[in-house]
């Protein structure tokens, strides 16, 4: 995984919840991926921080798949 270069990524990697919330409030896209396709949620999951992970999820971060339901299909 490449080094994080975005505020959300940095905050998630550093387990810095205040910074993460600040970045979210500032409008950084929660699902933004860096050059390696890594999102802040992935960073947070990698370091195992439940607080930042929950904050990202609450902010709407995607876990990687849409829920199955109307119109969604796995092909």
């Amino acid at each position, binding site marked *: *995984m490449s080094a994080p270069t975005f505020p959300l990524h940095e905050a998630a990697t550093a387990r810095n919840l205040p910074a993460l919330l600040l970045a979210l409030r500032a409008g950084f*896209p929660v*699902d*933004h*991926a860096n050059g*390696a*396709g*890594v*999102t802040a*949620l*992935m*960073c*947070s*999951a*990698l*370091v*195992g*921080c*439940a607080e930042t*992970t*929950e904050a990202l*999820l609450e902010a709407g*971060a*995607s*876990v*990687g*798949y*849409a*829920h*199955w*339901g*109307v*119109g*969604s*299909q*796995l*092909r």
Partner: protein
Amino acid sequence: MWGTLIGVSGHNCAEHSSCRLQDRRGWTALFHCAKSGTPQVAKLLVAHGAALLLRDQAGKMAYDVASESGRLAVRTLLRPDAANLLLSDTVGAELARKKLAAELGLQQLGVVPATAQTTAPDGPSDGQTQLAPPAVVTATSLFVDNSVLHPHLRPQLAGVEHVPYMVAMSDKARWLACAPYTMIRNLKSGVLFDCKLCCWQFARPRTYVKVTENALEVNNPLVCCPCKCAIVDAHTKIHFDKMLSITPFRAKRCSQYHMCCGACEPCGQVVAFAPRPSCANETCLLCCPCCFTTVPGLEDAASFAAFINVQKEEFVKRTGAQEGSCFECFCFNKNA
């Protein structure tokens, strides 16, 4: 890889950066968690719908990554049937309610309309107590259509899963209760009976437990789990057998490997996790057989049979199930 992800709206996720949910290795957040995360994070991700069965570009599932990384606690949560273990998780339940409430535009899910009336705890009546038309359509009102919902079974209350009372529910409500989130969602869009295919796909926190018997169920002791299907482990099997001895009139072991949920009155747990002779794969997750062979409360069994056949074809297309694999289960090869 991206082309394999088709979002809810049907667009190609490869063309939408917001949908790039996997990194270059095809890893989602769940894979990263499996690599070096914690069980708490794994629970959160799964509760938010992270796909346990998704494979990366190397063909591995998050479960495999956790195994290779020696993260046994996380690996346990990422077992392909782990979603069922999380069903009772309060985080997952709350999230599901919030999501459903958001979809339905509700501030709070599970609030019975103020005009609704209920009966005594063990006295579900048959039309004697009528519900006044709710002022607004709520998720709960879907469940109490032409029926009486016991207060203890309201989804917002804790411990509803073990309430021993039976509650009268309409056929529609039964369907909804089988897969609350998906079915209500589908109902909202006018698409009924869209799921019912396999347990792991639509595993959601259950909200209701028991339904009254109707004529069909009297004739057929297989009573489908009103809440969900689940994969049982050895412990649950023991529990099943225990319940079987207590309530034999409601229970029936369908086959050597299949178990019906009728006996699992208190827990609602269903089915089996076992090899299936007809299945060539090494491991086979079996879903509740009664969900497919017996329709709880469905008056028109023929229409269901026709429906389920269509769904079966779609299921095969969608999952790539091999010829000969069982429809009512999702088969996977651990060594694949």
